């Protein structure tokens, strides 16, 4: 019974639905028998609490009480298999409802630019400074909604691995919301160029980011044009970073001449004009008159295509390179296993990457089955985002207003969408562990556990006003947290907890050295 119920939300259900579930569970049992060994193992002895926590720590943003019991019930192999296919996991109704409230999160890039982009003269009359200021204010609300969208999904999506991979790939293909247009496009970039591809083929992800207007602005390819009349024309910024950071890696065997060649290949990939006269439905366009049509040899390959397709050919070439396979594999192993990833694991992942034509899902499958992954529990220091999200998930408090969480990440040095440099935020202990951060994290744990963060106060105009009036404070129940982590805390932490007043224990678990790691 527990097993069948735990598949769904723990709410009481009409008898008919419950009966349907029983049938479903029976069907599932039959299916399990027919499945290959990975799935059969799921029916094997229940996993230990530590194993459950490990898989939720790495494939999800930490454990909630619900997830903890659910994975214990269905087993680890089944959980991993599910998470690798997020499209099969239904999202919670109230998450969908709340994401729908974020008006700009679903708008397309053209519409966003038209409604929130820099104002343009109308019939020759320039906008006043006041009008421009008001427009910038509106642009800030677009960014705020994009941040809230991301935080709410990280907290409540059942497609946790998908959201973890959004974190991974966004940092890999970082853009910075401080640039005027990227402030309004960063949410669209995540929704259109990142999230749909996070478990797909790397090449598709690379192309989606390359063509998104947010990237064209951020790494200046929109300025990259063919040299004419002896004037300077190339802008090599994107061409350099796409090889160094997105694909081959800095030691991937390319030189300055290759950077310039790739920049020439990508000439003409740019933003649409603000009025969009020629292509009214695109924010990003290929402009042939800006493109360098001379024949080219790139990294030893004679380019076959020309025009826009030439850029696609070059990016596909980069996506399929063994250097890219190694670079991506290293980063995945660093994110999921260890700051200094075991070389043998990186090698195996790179092989799988190449053999599967850059299938990210396949590479992750190999990674999650590796002994290196299972031997690394608790070895990674959480990034500020991972710390804040996992603390709130563990605490089980409702969040109607994610802004205090966004503020906490910024105070810890990781403002969401605020990384200026294209290498994105790092995920290593060396990058984040510091005296200042340690005390700030403890301060956050205390405020969260006491219920003094205004997480239930709602943004003005939101339909959740009633909730904020009813529950101004929401202290965390220590028993709730102890139920998840009780078995996995270190000896010192347990002794300190026993010696402390009960009212402090939730904060102590969330602020403990154990909880800083995952």
């Amino acid at each position, binding site marked *: 019974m527990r097993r069948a119920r735990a598949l769904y939300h723990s709410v009481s259900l009409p008898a008919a639905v419950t009966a349907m579930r029983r049938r479903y569970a029976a069907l599932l049992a039959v299916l399990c028998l027919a499945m290959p060994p990975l799935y059969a193992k799921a029916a094997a002895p229940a996993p230990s609490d530590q194993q459950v926590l490990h898989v939720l720590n790495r494939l999800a943003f930490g454990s909630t009480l619900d997830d903890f019991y659910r994975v214990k019930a269905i087993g680890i192999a089944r959980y991993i298999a599910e998470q690798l296919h997020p499209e099969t996991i239904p999202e919670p109704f109230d998450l969908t409802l709340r994401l729908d409230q974020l008006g700009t999160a679903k708008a397309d890039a053209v519409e966003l630019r038209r409604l929130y982009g820099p104002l343009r003269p109308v019939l020759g009359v320039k906008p006043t400074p006041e009008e421009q200021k008001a427009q910038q204010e509106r642009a800030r609300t677009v960014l705020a909604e994009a941040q809230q969208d991301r935080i709410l999904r990280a907290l409540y999506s059942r497609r946790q691995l998908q959201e973890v991979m959004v974190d991974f790939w966004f940092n890999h293909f970082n853009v910075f919301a401080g640039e005027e247009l990227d402030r309004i496009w960063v949410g669209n970039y995540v929704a259109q160029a990142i999230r749909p591809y996070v478990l797909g083929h790397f090449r598709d992800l690379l192309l989606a980011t390359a063509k998104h207007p947010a990237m064209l602005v951020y790494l*200046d390819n929109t300025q990259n044009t063919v040299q004419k009349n002896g004037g*300077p024309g190339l802008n*090599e910024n994107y061409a350099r970073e796409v090889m160094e950071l997105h694909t081959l890696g800095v030691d991937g065997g390319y030189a300055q001449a290759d950077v310039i060649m790739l920049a020439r290949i990508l000439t003409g990939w740019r933003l649409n004009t603000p009025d969009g006269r020629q292509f009214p439905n695109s924010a990003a366009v290929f402009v042939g008159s800006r493109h360098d049509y001379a024949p080219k040899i790139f990294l030893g390959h004679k380019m076959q295509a020309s025009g826009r397709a030439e850029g696609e050919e070059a990016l596909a070439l980069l996506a399929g390179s063994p250097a890219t396979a190694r670079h991506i594999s290293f980063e995945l192993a660093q994110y999921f296993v260890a700051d200094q990833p075991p070389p043998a694991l990186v090698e195996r992942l790179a092989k799988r990457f190449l053999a599967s034509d850059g299938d990210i899902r396949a590479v992750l499958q190999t990674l999650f089955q590796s002994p290196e992954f299972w031997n690394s529990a608790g070895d990674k220091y959480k990034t500020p985002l991972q710390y804040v999200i996992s603390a709130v998930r563990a605490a089980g408090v409702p969040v109607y207003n994610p802004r205090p969480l966004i503020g906490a990440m910024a105070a810890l040095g990781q403002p969401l969408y605020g990384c200026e440099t294209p*290498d994105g935020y790092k995920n290593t202990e060396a990058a984040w*562990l*510091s*005296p*200042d*951060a340690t005390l700030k994290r403890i301060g956050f744990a205390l405020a969260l556990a006491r219920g003094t963060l205004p997480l239930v106060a709602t943004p003005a105009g939101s339909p959740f006003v009633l909730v904020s009036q009813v529950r101004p404070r929401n202290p965390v129940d220590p028993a709730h947290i102890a139920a998840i982590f009780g078995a996995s805390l270190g000896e010192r932490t347990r002794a300190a907890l026993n010696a402390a007043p009960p009212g402090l224990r939730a904060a102590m678990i969330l602020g403990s050295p154990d909880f800083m790691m995952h």
Partner: protein
Amino acid sequence: MRRRDFLRLAGGGVAAWRASPARQSRAGTPKSGMAHAATPEGQKRLVVVLLRGAVDGLNVVVPHAEKAYYEARPRIAIGRPGAPDGALPLDARFGLHPALAALMPLWREGRLAFVHAAGSPDPTRSHFDGQFYIESGTPGVHTTPDGWMNRLLAALPGPHGPTEALSVGPILPRILTGPMKVANLSLGPAATRKLPIEKPEIEAAFDRLYGGAGALAQAYREGKAAHAELVAALASEEQAADNGAPPPRVFPAQAGRLALLLRGDPRIRLACAALGGWDTHVDQGGPEGRLAGRLRPLGEGLAAFARGLGDEWRNTVVVVLSEFGRTLRENDAHGTDHGHGNVIWVAGGAVRGGRVYGEWPGLAPAQLYQDRDLAVTTDFRQVLTAILERHLRLSDQALAATFPAPPAADPGLAKLLAA
């Protein structure tokens, strides 16, 4: 130690300096410095400011005598001194970006110097490699596990206390990472607020949680110690010094606080701050614009830092570094791309400033690095070594520990610091 300090004090050097007109003119500043006689003889200090993203050194210290400079930058060049919005005059060859006007008093006092055409010998144009190398102090070597300021801290003579090196900001930069203990502080408006753990009961509970020996426990203890020091150093002085009105922009405010903290705590010997946003590929601007908007608070911050240090200015050297320079030619987008040579800024009470050091390679086509960039004629480690040797008085052995395999000393830099 104490006794020697006392003798030096009694020798009158400090007392004489205190009576100098410069100091008297600051008499309105309450309590400045003298409450902390703990550094009478002067703990020598080094402060490094990292400009991440490769600042355009050719528009910071402008080679206004070079025709090639104006030819290559028709839209973003800074005009010659005397021209409207032109460079501020430094010498016959160079001028300063007008947004750095706040630094001109230091230049005229001879407390600000530049080393032009300086940088890393490594040819990388990757920000991340470039920053790694100037922070590791080992150009071309990717495997160095620690930062040179951390190795420097270990090499400094004397017993080591808890907070000898400080980083401004919520994260520790690579330059300071390593086995030696280092603190960081945000120095934002909330920095001196009470810690949430300061209730005895809560503090005791977390002390037990973090009673172990690991890196996290160590960070916890460092954080508590640093916060206590900050509160002690700033709480009373700051309000009076600023009249409760901190400068509006972030860096000048942080720099002012850092100065007060250093003045109040003689144990801090090294400090580092990092500023981003210098990667001006697009719309860099000239006398005004994007780069100017970044330079102005930096200049004001450094000036505020020098002022705020009071007596301690003469014991302090500030170095401003960036990973590499930018292309001589402006690009189509009115910006500049990743280049090679840059300018290093050196300021401090003991600096022999008012001069642009370094061998100027010129900007004619044949003089450029790879046909596009200012060449590097001074290795950044040569500048740092000169400071380490003459200011921090490092032995050869300690120098070798800080910069393994350094380039030969540059005799041209022998006079960068007063003996």
